[in-house]
């Protein structure tokens, strides 16, 4: 007895020629149609000029792509050889927050450096019951007076925070974003009045909180967008997003155009985070590696991986100086990487299920990790042994 998978052919009338044929799904300007194979072939060759064939265009595209890829470049750890190695870190869990009845999916720090909002099915501290099941994204407003969250309900809702026991928080909620698939990430821009969202429908969008109006949408990912991060730049105009199509794309918020794209990961990108100077960003992926991409050099400059790390990284964040990269993995551990040297500084245990979210506090004194084991742990550095002899982790 063995299993075989068969391709199911859909028969029906083609959307173009209306003949009864075996149909294939085809996308035209983000709209799905069903074409028969002849019409699909015709569509593929539309727009060709004389002396052009699909094959010639394809080879030209590949040639230009190769030219772009072939540039002799250094990698970060080569340049960083002369930097003094970090010592041995001892990080201890200082707070364990248990209050969720379910997996913690996402968390964010408040600008006051002490409060956090986290989501699963119930939001922390101000208990808000959401009508949907999984709340996959949450964010604190810069003023600390509101939170935004969303998930499988395809929406992002903003809740003003109140301590009045009589007030029902859910009553004051404002539905801001509407997507056609689940919401995977959300973030306030510099103020309480704009929200940037990423969704499983492959797009990101910028919304005005007050009116719920869509200000800008960003198309370009070929699959679900899983994460985003705003750039800490002076002009404050770009953000990066990562998705299931293994691409990380940098967008211009004003025009909605993709400015740069990076495609070196081998699997879904779960998390992206900017380097504190804004000139680079790190990404964590299901292929068990974290990578650093430089925006000015337009390429990947470092890979953080180890043979013994098999599970995907679900969440990454930098310390304040950008020297340390914290990454939470699906094998319940957190690895701390030396960004410059590319080596692992330490591995932290403690969680009993996969680490789903990890953020360093705004003033860099501690970092918090949330996990599917229903807890959040806040860890700080207790002390650091100066380096005399490094045994392993080269």
């Amino acid at each position, binding site marked *: 007895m063995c299993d075989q998978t068969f391709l199911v052919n859909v028969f029906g009338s083609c959307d173009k020629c209306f003949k009864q044929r075996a149909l294939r799904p085809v996308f035209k300007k983000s709209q799905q149609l069903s074409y028969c194979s002849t019409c699909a072939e015709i569509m593929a060759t539309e727009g060709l000029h004389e002396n052009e064939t699909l094959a010639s265009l*394809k080879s030209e595209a590949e040639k230009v792509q190769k030219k772009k890829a072939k540039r002799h470049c250094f990698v970060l750890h080569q340049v*960083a050889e002369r930097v003094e190695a970090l010592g041995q870190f001892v990080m201890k869990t200082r707070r364990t927050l248990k209050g969720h009845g379910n997996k913690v999916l996402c968390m964010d720090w408040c600008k*006051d450096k002490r409060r956090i909002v986290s989501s699963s099915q119930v939001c*922390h501290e101000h208990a808000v019951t959401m009508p949907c099941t*999984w709340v996959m994204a949450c964010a604190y407003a810069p*003023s600390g007076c509101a939170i935004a969250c969303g998930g499988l309900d395809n929406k992002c809702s903003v809740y003003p925070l109140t301590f009045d026991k009589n007030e029902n928080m859910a009553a004051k909620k404002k539905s801001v974003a509407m997507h056609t698939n689940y919401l995977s990430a959300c973030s306030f821009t510099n103020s309480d009045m704009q929200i940037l969202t990423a969704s499983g429908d492959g797009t990101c969008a910028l919304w005005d909180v007050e*009116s719920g109006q869509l200000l800008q949408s960003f198309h370009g990912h070929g699959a679900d967008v899983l994460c985003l991060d705003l750039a800490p730049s002076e002009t404050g105009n770009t953000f990066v997003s990562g998705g*299931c199509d293994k691409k990380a794309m940098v967008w211009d918020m004003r025009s909605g155009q993709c400015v740069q794209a990076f495609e070196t990961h081998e699997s879904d990108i779960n998390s992206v985070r900017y380097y504190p100077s804004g000139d680079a960003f790190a990404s964590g992926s299901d292929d068990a590696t974290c990578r650093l991409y430089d925006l000015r050099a337009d390429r990947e400059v470092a890979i953080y991986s180890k043979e013994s790390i098999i599970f995907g990284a679900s969440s990454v964040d930098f310390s304040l100086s950008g020297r*340390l990269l914290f990454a939470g993995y699906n094998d319940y551990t957190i690895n701390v990487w030396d960004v410059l040297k590319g080596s692992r500084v330490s591995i932290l245990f403690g969680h009993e299920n996969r680490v789903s979210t990890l953020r360093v506090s705004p003033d860099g004194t501690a970092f918090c990790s949330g996990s599917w084991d229903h807890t959040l742990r806040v860890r700080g550095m*207790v002390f650091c042994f100066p380096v005399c002899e490094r045994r392993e982790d080269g």
Partner: protein
Amino acid sequence: MAAGPAPPPGRLRAQMPHLRKMERVVVSMQDPDQGVKMRSQRLLVTVIPHAVTGSDVVQWLAQKFCVSEEEALHLGAVLVQHGYIYPLRDPRSLMLRPDETPYRFQTPYFWTSTLWPAAELDYAIYLAKKNIRKRGTLVDYEKDCYDRLHKKINHAWDLVLMQAREQLRAAKQRRKGDRLVIACQEQTYWLVNRPPPGAPNVLEQGPGRGSCAASRVLMTKSADFYKREIEYFRKALGRTRVKSSICLEAYLSFCGQRGPHDPLVSGCLPSNPWISDDDAYWVMNAPTVAAPTKLRVERWGFSFRELLEDPVGRAHFMDFLGKEFSGENLSFWEACEELRYGAQAQVPTLVDAVYEQFLAPGAARWVNIDSRTMEQTLEGLHQPHRYVLDDAQLHIYMLMKKDSYPRFLKSDMYKGLLAEAGIPLGTKRRVFPFMWRPRHSSPSPALLPTPVEPTAACGLGGGDGVA
């Protein structure tokens, strides 16, 4: 388990790259030369070949990957939890013990990636076999599942019982050792795919993911697509890039400069509030504080952005600009920021206000922008949108950055601030762990009408989540 229709087995492998990697590790562990030492294990009267001890597994992993024993133990435990290695003696609990406990490697037939998703029918047959072989061996949750399946596949129940009996009969004809091994393998497989209540479900995946239709469809690559690709790569080639050696050097200097300011790398004075439960650090570094610390004042010299982002720094800079009679530049910049990040409905009013105050000829606080930018801005004001002042804002920002900011850093005012700022003394670390201070929650920003100077009575924000 998984929401939505189950994807075909090949898809799981592609979606979960860690399964493939685990399989590779397990295969290399079974290598006759380089793998873990195999031995024959005696269980009561039977001898089972190709068994390994827990401690050998841990040692091998520690050596192969050059990691600590703790990490090797963790990795081994993960392999056991996913059913790639199973315990011979106590097959109920999938745990790795780093001692003489015997383990064996799961046969590839039962690997998660081969036989997924587990079929309900197979589970029913398995439970029926257990039930028939010896009444009362089914544990509580298994009994519940059995009853539920009985109701669900009632129509095919005869088939289930018949299959179960067949398999038991075939098993009787095998040697005792083989029978034991196959039973263990099957039990491990079902422990992974149908975990008992309380045990973590390792095969559980997050919701959604891959439900976007675009990911499953092979794009028919049209001429349009290739043309766009060519254009994109040509633009990328033509884009001004910085030499990577320069970029990489920039990281070294950035990290070197910020290292002493990073609490997680260099610690912080007087003490890290999370470690010592003393929030003096937060009080001293509050957003608006009369006497900023030395490190903080130093940071204002790192970049213009750092100065502006710090409310105290910005206030001092505003004072400095006031002395130079160019304070309107900063105010203009702030007003533009408010426009950019403000509510959509407020855009027209804000634009008008900015025009009246800063741009109109003869305005009270007229900003000095070059004529071309001014012309373009005034043109754009006819159709106000939130980015209409971007060019003017950038011009003023650059002016401040290139001109006023360097002078500020060289000024007596800044030098004075730097000299006045103090370095807090480090507090002694507590030796006795049971002498902890009670923690108080800090007031939430949502409660405060305006940013408030924190008082000494402000306790530590613990936010213990027990609601």
